[in-house]
C-alpha cells in the first residue's frame, strides 16, 4: 500500500520529518515542560507511549471507522491512552507528574499524534503504522532531550540534578523560564535550517556544477 520501505517509515520520523524540529508539530509540550531533562524525558516517553498505542489501535480498526467520524474516533482512542499514561505517571513519579501539570492531559491535542493517525496509521497496515509511530516517537523524545538538556545545563548548571559545570556556576535564569524555551527552540531550528540549506546547496552544486541553468555557457 505505501510506497516507502519499512526502514524509511522508521527513520523518516527521527530525522527527515522530525515532528518538532522539522514539521514543528507538538511545540506546546516541547516549549512548556522542557525546562529540565527529567521533565522532558518523562514527557517524551509518555507521548511515545500514547503515539504507539493509538497508532496500533487506529491501524487495527481503520476499516471499521466511517470516514465522517474518523477524527473524533482518533481523538477518543488517543484520550484513552492519555488517561492510562496520566494515571501511570501519577502512580510512578508523582513529583514529575505534578511538575508536568496539565501538559500530560494536553497530549490529547498534540497535533503530532493526531497527524500520524490521519496521515499514516489510518491508511497503512499495522506493522508499518507501528514502525512509523516508533520513528516519530523517538524523534519527539530526541527533540525533547535536546531542548531539556540545553535548558537544564544553562538554567541550573546541572543535568538530571547532577552538577556538570564545576565551580560556582551562575545560572541563566531565563533558560528555565518560558522565554528560554522559545530561545532554545529557536537555536535548534536555526541550526537545522542551516544544515538543510547547506545540504540543498551542496546537492545543487553536484547537479549544476556551474550554477543553476549555466550548463550551456559552461559547455
Amino acid at each position, binding site marked *: 500500500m505505501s510506497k516507502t520501505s519499512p526502514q524509511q517509515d522508521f527513520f523518516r520520523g527521527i530525522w527527515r520529518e522530525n515532528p518538532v524540529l522539522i514539521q514543528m508539530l507538538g511545540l506546546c509540550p516541547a516549549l512548556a515542560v522542557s525546562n529540565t531533562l527529567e521533565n522532558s524525558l518523562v514527557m517524551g516517553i509518555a507521548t511515545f507511549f500514547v503515539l504507539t498505542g493509538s497508532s496500533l489501535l487506529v491501524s487495527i480498526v481503520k476499516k471499521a471507522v466511517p470516514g465522517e467520524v474518523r477524527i473524533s474516533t482518533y481523538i477518543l482512542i488517543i484520550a484513552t491512552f492519555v488517561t492510562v499514561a496520566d494515571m501511570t505517571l501519577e502512580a510512578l513519579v508523582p513529583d514529575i507528574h505534578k511538575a508536568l501539570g496539565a501538559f500530560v492531559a494536553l497530549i490529547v491535542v498534540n497535533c503530532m499524534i493526531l497527524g500520524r493517525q490521519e496521515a499514516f496509521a489510518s491508511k497503512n497496515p499495522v506493522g508499518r503504522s507501528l514502525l512509523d509511530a516508533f520513528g516519530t516517537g523517538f524523534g519527539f523524545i530526541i527533540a525533547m532531550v535536546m531542548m531539556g538538556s540545553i535548558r537544564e545545563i544553562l538554567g541550573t548548571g546541572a543535568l538530571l540534578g547532577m552538577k556538570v559545570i564545576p*565551580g560556582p556556576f551562575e545560572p541563566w535564569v531565563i533558560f528555565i523560564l518560558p522565554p528560554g524555551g522559545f530561545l532554545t527552540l529557536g537555536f535548534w531550528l536555526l541550526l537545522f535550517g542551516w544544515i538543510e540549506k547547506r545540504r540543498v546547496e551542496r546537492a545543487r552544486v553536484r547537479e549544476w556544477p556551474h550554477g543553476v541553468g549555466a550548463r550551456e555557457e559552461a559547455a
Partner: protein
Amino acid sequence: MTAPRLLITAWPHLAERDSTPRIMWTVNVSLIPVIVAAIYYFGPSAVLVIVAALAGCLATEWLFGSRETLFDGSAVITGLLLGLCLPAGLPMWMAFVGGAFAIGFGKLIFGGLGQNIFNPALLGRAFLQAAFPVALTTWPVIRENWWALRGDNLALPLMSPGEVDVLTSATPLGLMKFEQQSTELGKLMIGATGGSLGETAGILILLCGAYLAWRNYLNWRIPISIFLTVAALATLTHWLNPAFPGALFMLFSGGLMLGAVYMATDMVTSPVTNRGCWLYGVGIGVLVVVIRLWGGLAEGVMYAILLMNAMVPFINRATQPRVFGTRAAVKVTE
C-alpha cells in the same frame, strides 16, 4: 555583484554628505561625554563593562555579519549603549554575553542593520535582565576611592561573581518606589547617584542629544514628546497623590534621559513619519509612568521602548501622509 566604479545617472546630481557610517560615527562621538561621565563616577569598572559589551557586539558582528558592516559604527553604537545601561559591578563575561545577544538576536537574525524590529542594545539588556536578575540589579554607590572596582568585574566566564566589599544601594527610583525616599534634584541632574553607567548624567545626555538633534541625526519630536508626556503625567499623579514623585524627579531619574535621547530615537526602530514620532513618544511616556508607578519594577524605560518598538509598523501604517493631490473626492449629493 560589485557596484560599478563609476555610476552614471541622469542629472541633477546632488552630493549627499550624510551616509550611514558618518551618522553612526557621529552618534558614537557624541556618546563620548556620557562615557567620560560614567568613568568619572564609576572608575575602572565602567571601562571594563563598556569594553566587554563592545567586544561582545563586535565579535558577533565579525563572526556572523558581513565584514563590511563591522566598521560602519552601528555595532559600536549598540555596544556602547548596552554598556551604558548596565550596572558598574557587572562581571565582564555577562556584558560580553549581552553584547553577543544584542547583535546576534537583536540585529543579525532579522537580516542586519536596518531590518531589526527592536533596539538591539535594549534587547541585549532585556536578555541580561531576565538571565541574571540579581547581578543586573546590584547598584554600587559612587565611592571615595576612584580606583577600586565596583564589583567582581573580573569573575571567570560562567561563574558567579564573588563577594566583593562594595557598598551597594538602590537607585533613586528604587528608593522612591520601595522606601518612599526622595533624592536631591541637583544630584540627579549631574548624576551623582547610584544607577547604570549612563543613566546618571542627565544634563550631559541632554546636551549631547541637543547636538544630535541640531545635526538632524535624531528626530527631536521623539524625546520632546516623551519628556512632555512623562512630565504631564507625573504632575497629574503627583497632584492627585503626593506620595508619587513629581515631574522633575521622574525626568531626571533612572534611564529616561539615555533611553529617550539615544535608544528611542534609533533610526531603524522608530517611526518614519513626524506624526508617528509624536504618537510613539507619547506611548513610551505613558508606559514609562505606568510601569514606574504601578508596575513591579522600579524602572520601566527599557520595556516601554521595546513595547513601542513593536508598535512601530502599525504607527507607520496609521500615520501615512496623504499623497498631494489625492484628496478624497467630494461626495456628490443625489
